[in-house]
């Protein structure tokens, strides 16, 4: 086994999928010779050639629509968008076509595609490079929205996304691309989609998040442990379809829940999880549900970014507030 960064794990998963299935293609801007602006496709061009690692024109609406056409022809395109903020032109194709081609043809045509984009803040990036748009995709019928939080989960979830017969939006927390290394076995083993991962047990409060927030939740759990508060941590991983059972099960034990995300607050995924707890977990709750999120503002430029992004201290403070309820 090798210790890999997340971006290397994603690259290995794509290479593995391309090795095992000739219909898997990688497309995007600068994915060929350049290996992608984050190097997620490094070496793939040399290994698989220009017909399987395809540099496209600078053309985001095309990219998603092209994937729909390829998917309808039973190819499995993995499409890289350079940044979250440049994924918006693809929304038309995703919501109007990718997410409904199977349904509107009653299964005659389908769309086994993966839309990849580096996402989220925390790397002091320019404007439009720090967005957290997961809510948009999670709201679209017919599309899975998957966000890894470690190199190992990135590898397993990417393999699962490529093998899945339906469209997956795969958002890669760019601040985690090279933040840590982890042993990742390139063994072709996928991780399950549509499932949350229980990362840490804790009976006092359940901390729920995904992507880059996961590390913040774990830091917060450490802070809380020093104070004698046992915090459990859940990595949602697939935002939709949402594995409600795992979250409900944990909150039934703890009675308290903090949900964290970088995305703006209103109508964000935390609201969906809070509604789930209100609807199906109400009598287990010992305290209100807390949301630690971005604000209803455009992501600030780097100098104010730290005030925007949820951090361990904000998460721990929310958990402490909940501990005040008996």
């Amino acid at each position, binding site marked *: 086994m090798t210790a890999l960064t997340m971006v290397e794990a994603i690259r290995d998963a794509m290479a593995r999928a391309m090795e095992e299935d000739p219909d898997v*293609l990688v497309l995007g801007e600068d994915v060929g010779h350049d290996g992608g602006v984050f190097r997620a496709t490094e070496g793939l061009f040399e290994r698989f050639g220009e*017909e399987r690692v395809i540099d*496209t*024109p600078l*053309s985001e*609406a*095309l990219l*998603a*629509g*092209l*994937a*729909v*056409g*390829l*998917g*309808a*022809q*039973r*190819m499995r*395109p993995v499409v890289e968008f350079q940044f979250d903020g440049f994924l918006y032109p693809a929304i*038309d*194709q995703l919501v*109007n*076509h990718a997410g*409904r081609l*199977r*349904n*509107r*043809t*009653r*299964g*005659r*045509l*389908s769309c086994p595609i993966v839309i990849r984009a580096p996402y989220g803040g925390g790397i002091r990036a320019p404007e439009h490079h720090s967005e957290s748009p997961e809510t948009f995709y999670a709201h679209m*019928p*017919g599309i899975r929205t998957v966000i890894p939080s470690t190199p190992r989960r990135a590898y397993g979830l990417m393999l699962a996304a490529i093998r899945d*017969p*339906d469209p997956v939006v795969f958002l890669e927390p760019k601040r985690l691309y090279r933040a840590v290394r982890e042993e990742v076995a390139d063994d072709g083993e996928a991780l399950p989609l*549509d499932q949350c991962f229980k990362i840490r047990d804790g009976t006092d409060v359940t901390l729920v998040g995904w992507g880059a927030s996961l590390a913040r939740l774990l830091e917060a759990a450490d802070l809380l442990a020093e104070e004698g508060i046992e915090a459990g941590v859940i990595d949602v991983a697939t935002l*939709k*379809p*949402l*594995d*409600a*059972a795992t979250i409900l099960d944990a909150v039934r034990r703890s009675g308290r829940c903090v949900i964290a995300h970088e995305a703006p607050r209103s109508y964000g995924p935390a609201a969906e999880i809070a509604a789930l707890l209100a609807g199906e977990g109400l009598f287990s709750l010992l305290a209100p549900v807390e949301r630690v999120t971005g604000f209803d503002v455009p992501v600030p430029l780097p100098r104010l970014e730290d005030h925007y992004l949820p951090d361990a201290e904000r998460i721990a403070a929310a958990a402490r507030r909940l501990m005040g309820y008996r």
Partner: protein
Amino acid sequence: MQQVASFAVERTAYLDADGSSVERLPAFAGDRDELVRLYRSMVLTRTFDAKAVALQRTGRLGTFASSLGQEAVSVGIGAAMRAEDVLVPSFREQGAQILRGVTLEEIFAYWGGDERGSDFAGPREDFPICVPVGTQAAHAAGVALAFRLRREPRVAVCVMGDGATSKGDVYEAMNAAGVWRLPVVFVVNNNEWAISVPRSRQTATKTLAQKAIAAGFEGEQVDGNDVIAVRAVMERALALARDERQPRLIEALTYRLSDHTTADDARRYRDDKEVSERWKAEPVGRLRGFLVAREWWSKGDEEKMLAECAREVDAAAEAYLARSDQPATAMIDHVFAELPAAMEGQRSAIAALGARAGGEGR
């Protein structure tokens, strides 16, 4: 100063408005059976459209987009394509769809609000009707890219209206087709009206065909009311795409004699006199004039065929009207290949609603 680029746009036409030939005809025009097939397809399409409008007016069909006056465009396309090619239509290509084996009942079902209408029994790889204007152009590029990567001698044919050429999506798709030399033919059904916006206000370019030039391939015009010309030009374009990997844009000049859809009233923005003038150049009478002049078509042939087309359309309409609805759960059963566990609760709720309505809930 030196000139570094220039272009020309050619227009093909074989028949004038009363069906006399103005050019030396292509070889297939010497084949009576083929011309009768084209003629019958146009008449069948027109009969179908009239029935669909009648069903809509009497509350038995949803909003419908007639192709009245533009039958030669889609019939010419459908007649030139091979079965293994893929049609990526807009929403006014029933003539091509019928020729490719989509049944009249399926087309009625689609416009009647039943998704099964897009589960074509015939051309299994053809795209369903595309409502968001111009978004289908990228699908055609994707289909063509798949053909090219698999070295299959097949062509994707994307049809769009004149309004679609103003969309960035269409340019993005054409641009990629040019860069990668994709086996794709883009056809613009220029019927001069994008709902209420006339061609003159859609773009300042002299032709729509020249939009291909910026994408690095040829564009040409064809008289879209001359089915012989549309078929001939399509055949040429398909061969170039198939054998030479040359994408092409064909602008078919025609006219929308109907409203945009049954939900539209064109009298609000369009002079009736313009419409009656354009009736003089419509495609069905034009080909009939040609056939009659060659003594290939008699009054008896005409009556017999009209009756056949009416019978075929009526039978399809009756079959459509006799269809039972899908179970309510059909709305959730095709969203994903397999129902995600997280959606099982929603499926039960839908099944209960179906059962409440007395339908087959599950």
